[in-house]
């Protein structure tokens, strides 16, 4: 197989857009057909490269939203001042081609044998690699208990809401809406901090494994609070997106 010979090397290749689905007002899921895809692990990402008519090149990393064994899907949030994301969310159509390389990263990944209980903390589009982990857990028949705490600005900003609401009984999904809560909202309405984590997170004595993904400020606050509450630092995996994105 041609792809096997290249294993170990990371080469740019052309993927074809199969479809683009609307997740929220600013978020799209792009389904891709990637020839010779070697397969990926839950939590990995790809690099996307766009080249304009004047050969100006922009590269960005995007988490893979689909589970291992599923076709590659990327969920992308439009950043209004972004160089790459507005093209991906607004311009890209089925049949278009896209340059990518991957899968990338072995640090922020989860396999069922890594165990748990799992604590997944998502800020805004930080949910994307965690969704891959959730789907991987379900597809492999894992019974490791999971708590997901997902911070968004408003209910309309919650990505994968339909899928998360249908999650299995042993997956606890807890929302916090930091900017606006609809009337009668029963979830949380404040930022993720030590006090909120004390209510929601597994106690450190349960030897949980935590994955924290989102904007840098969210990840710093949440991961530091977990370590202060007794989580060993090596059991708190982090993926910072930088300064942008809504939580």
């Amino acid at each position, binding site marked *: 197989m041609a792809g096997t010979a290249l294993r*170990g090397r990371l080469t740019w290749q052309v993927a074809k857009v199969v479809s683009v689905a609307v997740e929220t007002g600013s978020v799209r899921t792009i389904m891709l057909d990637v020839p010779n895809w070697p397969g990926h692990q839950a939590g990995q990402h790809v690099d996307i490269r766009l080249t304009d008519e004047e050969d100006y090149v922009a590269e960005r990393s995007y988490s893979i939203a689909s589970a291992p064994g599923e076709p590659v899907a990327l969920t992308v949030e439009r950043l209004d001042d972004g160089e790459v994301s507005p093209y991906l969310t607004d311009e890209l159509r089925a049949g278009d081609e896209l340059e990518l390389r991957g899968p990338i990263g*072995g*640090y922020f990944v989860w396999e069922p044998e890594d165990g748990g209980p799992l604590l997944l903390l998502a800020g805004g589009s930080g949910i994307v690699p965690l969704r891959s982990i959730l789907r991987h857990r379900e597809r492999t028949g894992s019974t490791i208990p999971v708590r997901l705490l997902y911070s968004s600005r408003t209910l309309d900003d919650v990505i994968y809401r339909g899928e998360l609401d249908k999650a299995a009984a042993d997956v606890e999904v807890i929302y916090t809406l930091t900017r606006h809560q609809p009337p009668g909202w029963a979830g949380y309405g404040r930022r993720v901090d030590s006090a909120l984590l004390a209510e929601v997170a597994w106690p450190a004595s349960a030897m949980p494994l935590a994955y924290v993904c989102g904007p840098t400020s969210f990840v710093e606050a949440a991961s530091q609070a977990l370590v202060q509450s007794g989580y060993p630092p090596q059991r708190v995996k982090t993926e910072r*997106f930088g300064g942008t994105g809504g939580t």
Partner: protein
Amino acid sequence: MDAVDGNAIGGLLHEVFGAEMTTTVSVCGTCGTARQVGELAVYAHAPGTVVRCPSCDNVLMVFVKIHDRTCVDLMGLASLG
């Protein structure tokens, strides 16, 4: 400026070293802290990409792309891998 994780430059590192590097252990040349590369602090918006030790802030690695070449400075590391 906000840092991202070493994990975010897994593609660049793979390009430079020819292998997946985010789970490789690095040791800081200043404070001696050992961490997986995926945990290091990355400032990608500097001119080039600057990788710092999250414990002491020492610069561990610098990558600068000039045309098709990547210049690599690993002087801040005691060891890698």
